[in-house]
């Protein structure tokens, strides 16, 4: 079971690099959706006892992260008629290098934290930190509102991986809270993306600079 979990986590980490190095928005959205589905499958392998609750959470995770949110983003992308992230603040190659450095640093940092016996040797904690870091890079270095939203999703995915370590000890409520947060947040962001679109006829947040100091 543990080797399966680690294999899936390696795929999640590879997707991080793909996300950092791609300019096509459609591919980026798909990669983040794939990551979401992988997290749902990961949860499947982590759950020891299968209650109705566990099945519900897994299904909700996969549908929200893998289907619902990506399709909303794709629609926003079509409405705005943009396909690529052009001229990110940091180029794709440098951000890939930064991501690699971040992943390495996460592995080192996670070593300094004492783990519970059931997580010895597991990749969960470093993968969580590395994914959070990847999300941060995308969030801060891309100019398009859609890319920034994807960055936020990746960041949330990273936090979700951390949540997996607690899955047996954590109450149901928090897990639902995570999903709800994600759903509503993106929902509202979607509304705003539409408004930004109407007002600026572009989803380039660099144009949102009237309020710069």
């Amino acid at each position, binding site marked *: 079971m543990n080797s399966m979990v680690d294999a899936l986590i390696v795929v999640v980490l590879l997707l991080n690099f793909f996300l950092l190095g791609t300019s096509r928005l459609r591919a980026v959205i798909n990669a983040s959706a794939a990551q979401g589905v992988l997290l749902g499958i990961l949860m499947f392998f982590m759950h020891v006892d299968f209650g109705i609750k566990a099945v519900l959470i897994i299904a909700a995770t996969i549908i929200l992260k893998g289907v619902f949110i990506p399709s909303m983003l794709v629609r926003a992308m079509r409405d705005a008629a943009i396909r690529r992230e052009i001229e990110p603040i940091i180029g794709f190659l440098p951000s890939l290098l930064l991501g690699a450095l971040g992943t390495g640093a996460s592995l080192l940092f996670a070593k300094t*934290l004492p783990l519970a*016996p059931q997580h010895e040797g597991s990749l969960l904690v470093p993968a969580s930190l590395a994914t959070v870091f990847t999300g941060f890079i995308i969030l801060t270095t891309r100019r398009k*509102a859609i890319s920034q939203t994807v960055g936020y999703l990746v960041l949330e995915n990273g936090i979700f991986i951390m949540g997996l370590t607690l899955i047996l000890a954590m109450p149901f409520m928090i897990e639902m809270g995570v999903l709800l947060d994600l759903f509503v947040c993106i929902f509202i962001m979607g509304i705003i993306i539409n408004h930004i679109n109407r007002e600026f006829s572009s989803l380039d947040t660099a144009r949102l600079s009237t309020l710069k100091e």
Partner: protein
Amino acid sequence: MLLALIIAPLSFAVITFFIPHQRLRAIMLPIGGSAHLILVTITLISPQIAKPSPWLAIDPLNRLVLGLLSFLFFICSLYTPGYLRLRANRPNRVFCSALFAFLATMSLAVLAQHLGLMWVAIEACTLSLAPLIYFNHNPRSIEATWKYLLIGSVGIALALLGSFFLSYAALATGKPVSLFFNELVSDGVHLSRPWLRAAFILLFVGYGTKMGLAPMHSWKPDAYGEAPGLVGALLAGGLTSCAFLAVLRFFRICLAAGETAFAQQIMIISGLASMAIAGIFMIGQRDFKRLLAYSSVEHMGILVLGVGIGGLATFGSLLHLINNGLTKAVLFLAAGNIHRAYQSKLVNEVSGAMRRLPISGALLLAGFFAITGSPPFGPFISELTILRAAIANNQILITVLFLLFLLVVFMGMGTQILAVVQGEPSRAATNTNIKDHFLTVAPIIICCALVLLLGIYLPTPLVNALQVAANFLEKTL
């Protein structure tokens, strides 16, 4: 009873949403605001009525915040009908409902005794504020809302990661995990130290973003600048106090775990940095609502600095929480009136507010003197208490920097505020014929009188409540 504090505003939100008439919706706010204040007063006076559950309870810390929050909302709700009359051309359905939703989620966040429940409440609160900031529906307010949502969501995401880390700190010891604050405090000694430290940093950054501590404050000037004045008052006095409460809860866990020096150091450095950055950005700020936002950054800095110094300063800091909340309401509401009358919030276009709007102008000036810590207003007492504690602890460097930053802020803010209130009314003054109206100044006068009263005389019940709260926070020392 405690549940009623959350359900009442929530049902008001739903009712208001379905009221078809603009004016009627505006009148619902004072009704709902007073209902909440009455409920809170009953709960605070006779605690036996409130049946605490493990999830929701009144404790010495949150009763202060709850009282402040409810009173602040009451003042703002009295102000709302007068304000919305000036904005009759804007649909107010979502605005009024969102105000009630904000009150409900804030009450939940304050009363919550569980790490996860508090997090969910603060997240919901963040969302309910978005339509309030977006009220004006123009490009500038979209930009402000986008920034607020994005930075706010990242903050709240980091707070969640911090919560997970804290849970793991409990899990790593191999004991059953409980995420109720009281149990985290009583089990504090057993928490895994490296995880706890990492968790505190993440939680401090996360909830610090909500408070608007530098350098995570960049959403604040935009949101406060573009949102209506009364939303600014609720943000600066309500949301930030609520986030401060969250920081205090985790600070308490750190103290219980024996990480006092570590947590205090973070609080002191971050507090001084916020004061410094606020001071720098205030100099030459040409927009008086943004100026108030930086003042909020500064005072959040003072709050965490006080708790970081500890002892008597914790008492001062908690008193300052109340003083700051009330004074911010005076400032933001008065500034909102001036903004409406001049149709501008730029210092070089607005002057002579004292003549154009005698009462709002005078209140803005009084609010300025109060917030910069001039006697005889309330903030003077609380800032002096923090200063005395720093001197008594022989923290010379902190004392000097604290005084220096206060001076910089006083000068930076003073130049702009005086330019607004003094002189001849500028050309922008004739943009509208809006005058001071009973409905838009009376609530501010009540608030200002209270700030003055707190500076002259501290009622014994309040002093006791503050002392109990300070002991509650630090009793594990």
